[in-house]
């Protein structure tokens, strides 16, 4: 009896020779412990060293290995072959992104947007407050819980891949970046909300979102960026209303 095998239809794109992406099929031994990433690595080691993809931790924390697996954005280190076997698997680069090579997409747009939303603690004494034992900014476990979920983002880009708005409108700041802005807005130690809100509270930010909600469905870390965006919508609206009614109010 032959050893079980599995077939992978993988997108290839090798500029400048390839004018556009093509599909290449590989058949390899099936291993019930493997994930799609292991299969790609096997292909690369044994059959075709020209297959390029990003990978590192193999445990779903570095965010490198996001790809489309049978049309769904997934971390390939967490897509188990046994869930697809004996059918074949289609592996494509993440949707909604330009493709640099094979399964490697260009995420510079996100890196720029991340920078724009000011994802760091903003306060006058952030670099100068006394440090050492006993000098932590006090924060209760409840206050940490207010933003903890939104801090779990591993920047894997699956949410951008699932968002049809981002697919159609490149200027949209996007789920992960807005979720990270919200994470800092909700951090009791931060005082930079007024600087972040103009960045995300405009038609390229939260108001571009029509709450499709798919970003939260595909997020492997349960960040729920859709909730972050909607909460930010409420917060900016609230600020606006309060500003009208009580313009002397400091925020």
């Amino acid at each position, binding site marked *: 009896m032959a050893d079980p095998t599995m077939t992978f239809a993988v997108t290839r794109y*090798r*500029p*400048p020779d390839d004018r556009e992406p093509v599909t290449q099929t590989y058949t390899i031994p099936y291993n019930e*412990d493997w994930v799609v990433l292991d299969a790609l690595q096997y292909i*690369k*080691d*044994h059959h*075709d*060293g*020209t297959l*390029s*993809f*990003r*990978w*590192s*931790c*193999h*445990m*779903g*924390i*570095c*965010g*490198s290995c996001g790809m489309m697996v049978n049309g769904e954005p997934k971390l390939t280190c967490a897509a*188990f072959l046994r869930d697809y076997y004996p059918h074949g698997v289609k592996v494509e680069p993440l949707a909604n992104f330009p493709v*640099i*090579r*094979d399964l*490697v997409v260009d*995420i510079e747009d996100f*890196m720029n947007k*991340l920078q724009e939303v*000011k*994802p*760091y*603690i903003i306060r006058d*004494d*952030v*670099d100068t*407050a006394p*440090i*050492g*034992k*006993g*000098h*932590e*900014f*006090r*924060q*209760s*476990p409840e*206050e*940490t819980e207010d*933003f903890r979920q939104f*801090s*779990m983002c*591993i*920047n894997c880009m699956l949410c951008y891949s699932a968002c049809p708005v981002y697919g159609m409108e490149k200027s949209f700041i996007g789920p992960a970046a807005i979720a*990270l802005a919200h994470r*800092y807005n909700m*951090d009791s130690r931060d005082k930079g909300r007024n600087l972040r809100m103009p960045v995300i509270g405009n038609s390229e930010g939260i108001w571009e979102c029509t709450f499709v909600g798919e970003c939260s469905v595909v997020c492997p870390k349960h960040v729920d960026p859709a909730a972050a965006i909607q909460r930010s919508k409420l917060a900016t609206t609230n600020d606006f209303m309060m500003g009208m009614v009580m313009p002397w109010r400091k925020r």
Partner: protein
Amino acid sequence: MDVFNHDIVIVGGGLAGLRAAIASAQAGMDVALVSKVYPMRSHSVSAEGGAAAVVRDDTGDSLELHALDTIKGSDFIADQHVVEYFVEEAPKELIQLEHWGCPWSREPDGTVSVRAFGGMSVNRTMFAADKSGFHMLHAIFQTSLRFPKITRYDEHFATKLIVDDGRCIGVVAIDLRTGEFRAFGAKATILATGGCGRLWAFTTNGFINTGDGLGMAYRAGAALSDMEFPQYHPTGLPGTGILITEAARGEGGYLLNSEGERFLKDYVPSRMELGPRDIISRAIITEFEAGRGFQGRLGQYMQLDLRHLGEEKINRKLPFVRELAENYIGVDPVHEPIPIRPVEHYMMGGVRCNVDGETIVPGLYAAGECAQEGLNGGNRLGSNSLTECLVFGARTGTAAARYAGEIGAGKTSSLEAQSNDEEQRIKTRFFQNQSGNERVGLLRGELQQAMERNVGVFRTREGLLAAQEDVQELQERFKKVKLDDTSAVFNTELTGVLELENLMDIAETVVAPAILREESRGSQARRDFPTRDDQKFLAHSLCYKTDGGGPRVEWQEAVITKWEPVERKY
């Protein structure tokens, strides 16, 4: 060739590299951060357990105790003045990171919590649930975004340190996106490239941990020190090697053998599951050899039992552990014990440097796991390394800034000439030369198997000599490697072969001193020399590259200030 001149070039964008970048930027330097991956992919992200420091008044802790624990944990070859500096700076760095947004777990009164950890006599490990490395890395990466003096060159693979007139004046790197070589001129260069776990077949390390900085430093004339001390973490998942954090034991988990016993009572009775990692890993292997291990489809294992902690505690303190066990080994720790076995995890050794991160090559610095600055000796205590990255990242960044402020830039003509030569070398060797027959992935696998076989938890002279022969044979076969991919854009077979080149170069620095160190100390356990020999080996090994025939090995005495070596018993 594009040339970029900066005051400081840092190779590696993990916890240590980013901390150094911020320190240098705060000192007014113009900093280039060159990393082969986007910084948030650096392997610092996978650390789970926590970072140790004396941050609380109510635990009976003191800097003395933290230092003593660390020095004893090192099996007495830590450089004690370095440890003393470390324990004093540790609380400052961890609280600075807290100010910078790190979501440390808290007590009800809002102060930072600490938990128990292996080899620590007092609870002093700060943690962010069980994703401490992730939170620390993202906090510092995001903080680095507000320093305009830091210019990042993401997905740039550094291949060679440029040394001119005996001084390191920069580095040449490949822009992976285009395949173009770029020269980076620097008054001071800092290596923060992490460990080399991919030298072994069974490791917790990511695919990117291939000792690139170690290889570059070795080839540039720096010394690789204490490389015979890789750390075996006791609890890795069989098959994948995925790390199950020591915090699982810190929260009260038990290690059980096939007889259902907490067998560590026979090895570290006073600490049990919270003994130091080297002793526990050896205990597990010893139990395997005595026939008291479980036999599974993926090899032998012991049980890590968390059931008695209860679902609420596991979900609150160890949620990632639960997720990993369920996904990768099909076990829910709330209901079943997790199968685990010792796995390569960390490299105590690295580029030899002083407390400022200075190596023997002027202008070349090292920080983080890739550095051997004298903190960890023969065995590192869990939760010291995340702190290590911050403390020495900061100090090295500051020291390099001071040096760069005093010295002029190197000669651009030398930088360009050597960078062009390196481009030629690589293209000729790997693109034009199509006469070989060895595949990158397969050779790498053989090297990993060779190291796994004979350079493991227990070693013998015969085994190490066999490993040395294996390495030499593989180095020969490496000359006949042939790439499928000779294209320019994002060529990961090229990066794969360059990474393998680094592994091939540094493998000998792990084996040679392991042979010559005829004693058992820390994570080096020789069956033929089962005791410690303070007369001959209270020292660090230093390996220097020679022109073939393996490294030249020298010994440098460990620095003792206050704590005289004693028998290491727990």
